[in-house]
């Protein structure tokens, strides 16, 4: 019997999880930040459903994203025939919410609350999110299928057990599930997979003037890292030797030690 190669094993596990979420709830959505992880997840979701994803793909638009992100989103939403759902907290944006007010409040208002409103509006039962265990210690504590209550609270002190691939199926009426099909991937796996599959990614990841973004989000809160990696191959090589954390350029991880835990317990991705 053949033994699968490593990337193929990761991909197959992700397909199984995506299909499991759809099989259980039908009314689900995939969260696409346009970053490398969620773009890889989207790529795999297209495989899971033979080219046509049968549910909406959601972009949470804070109004502060890089212009490259908007361009990439609109281009590939069309090419891949996505049912794109744009989720924005317009009232907060109009009343001047921004990172200069307070980074924690801004993340909460423009991402978490926007997401809450969209989930309510469309009565979504499960959300596919491309978080990975190796990107942040708090994310390393996540389950593949993680329930959230009406207030989107993550009850991290009392997470249900998750055994093998027999994922949580039942939901209370006021719960929804965060489903994490990419949880077992590492940053370097993502890049090796992008290389293997020739998945398009935004140019922000490639070095220009010795700087590149390793993790992208809002333009206001992302800092590039020093790097000469201007091709996927060079990025893989860089990651094989780096000692810098992936999210070292992300402001919300740094404010204070537990910002990520606080944000996540309020429903942040």
């Amino acid at each position, binding site marked *: *019997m*053949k*033994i*699968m*190669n*490593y*990337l193929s*094993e990761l991909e*197959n596990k992700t*397909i*199984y999880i995506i*299909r*499991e979420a*759809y*099989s259980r709830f039908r009314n689900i959505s995939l969260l696409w930040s346009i970053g490398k992880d969620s773009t890889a997840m989207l790529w795999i979701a*297209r*495989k*899971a*459903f*033979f*080219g*046509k994803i*049968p549910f909406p793909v959601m972009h949470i638009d804070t109004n502060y994203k890089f212009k490259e992100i908007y361009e990439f989103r609109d281009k590939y939403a069309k090419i891949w025939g996505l049912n794109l759902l744009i989720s924005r907290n317009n009232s907060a944006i109009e009343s001047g919410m921004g990172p200069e007010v307070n980074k924690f409040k801004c993340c909460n208002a423009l991402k978490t609350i926007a997401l809450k409103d969209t989930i309510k509006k469309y009565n979504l039962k499960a959300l596919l999110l491309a978080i990975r*265990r*190796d990107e942040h*210690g*708090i994310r*390393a*504590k996540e*389950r593949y299928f993680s329930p959230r209550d009406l207030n989107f609270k993550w009850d*991290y*002190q009392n*997470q*249900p*057990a*998750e*055994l*093998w*691939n*027999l994922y*949580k*199926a*039942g*939901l*209370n009426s006021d719960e929804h599930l965060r489903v994490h099909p990419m949880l*077992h991937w*590492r940053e370097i796996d993502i890049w*090796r997979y992008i290389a293997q599959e020739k998945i398009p990614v935004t140019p922000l990841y490639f070095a220009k003037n010795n700087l590149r973004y390793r993790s992208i989000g809002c333009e206001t809160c992302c800092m590039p890292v020093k790097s000469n990696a201007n091709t996927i191959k060079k990025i893989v090589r860089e990651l094989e030797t*780096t*000692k*810098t*954390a992936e999210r*070292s350029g992300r402001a919300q991880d740094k404010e204070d*030690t*537990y910002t990520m*835990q606080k944000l996540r317990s309020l429903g942040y991705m």
Partner: protein
Amino acid sequence: MDRETLSIVITGHVDHGKSTLIGRLLLETGSLPKEKLAEIKKISNALGKDTEIAYLIDQFKEERSKDMTIDTTQIFFKTRKRDYVIIDCPGHLELIKNMITGATLAETAILIIDCAEGIMEQTKRHAYIIAMIGIRNIIVVINKMDLVNYSQEKFIEIKSAINTLFQTLDMKPYFIVPISAKDGVNITKKCSKLNWYNGPSFLKALDMLKPSREKTSRSLRLPVQDVYDIEKKRVLVGKILSGSLVKGKEILVLPGSAKAKIADIKIFGKKPKKASNGENIGITLDRDIDVKRGCVIVDKESTSRLENRFQGHIFWMSEKPLEINRPFNIRCATQEVKCIAEKIERKINSSTLEMISDNPDKVGLNESAKVSFKTDRPIVIEEFSRLKELGRFVIEGDSALLGAGIII
């Protein structure tokens, strides 16, 4: 480029040093981003402590202030030989569900024991759970050797108790390694403080383990996960658990006697003629038969076990006990059926590994038992040792997980 990956779970009694061992491994294999070390120094200082390497793993605020792991964490590191995923588990009894969650993700287990305290309640329970969920690759580490002046005598005493413990579980650890995680002794290399010890260092022992590959059977098992309507065709999707498929092959859909031929195998972007175990695929059939999630596709001349009675070893995780004849749901691969326990054959206290004779009609929280089940319709099962994914199940009630088990 295609390096081997081994997933290991670190288990053991509370405070025996699980998180410290992982912190030490990361430190000594150079797997830490530099910001991480600065961050834990800062936090340790803020909490008025020396640099606490366990904080690398214990990420929650509550975990650091209470000096305990609450939930399972995964961390990655590599050696020259291969990549590792390490899963740290909480050692507290109340957090046993988090420990089991971590353990089911691993193919290798490390059981850590404080040499001053010796074998404790959770040491036995974790050993039992490791055995029950089918992990056979085991290393025992005897930690805190610094507290007993690296005494060979003490090591031999605990080693012999461990061997006895594993004998009762019908298992044998591959290595029993003395270490001091706090001082970094015998983690990555041998140390003169343990000059009486002839075995490998902990990391060397890890590298010597072989990944446990399941012996795969040739007979087809494809549990149907879902049915999609694509371009007016019904596409059955699922993961092939064993065996393989070729176009034109005759198959049988269980439960029932409906047979069909495979008209097409679908993998997006490919035109496969064949698919085999591990692959998540779609298929279309040459005739219209009733197939839904939970059906299992097998070879036409199959000798599969399609049964409505079976025995399992279970571990119970709910305050509400398992009771004879009270209905609940059982899930095995994509199959889901109503079920009752007909008979509790024997019950084991997982912390002492002794038989329990009281309340013979109930299995309570954190108890283990051998149970005879009856389902309301037949399902396709296998012995766990033959095919894991059809040999394991979870028990649910009111949308909550109550227990889990393996089929014997």
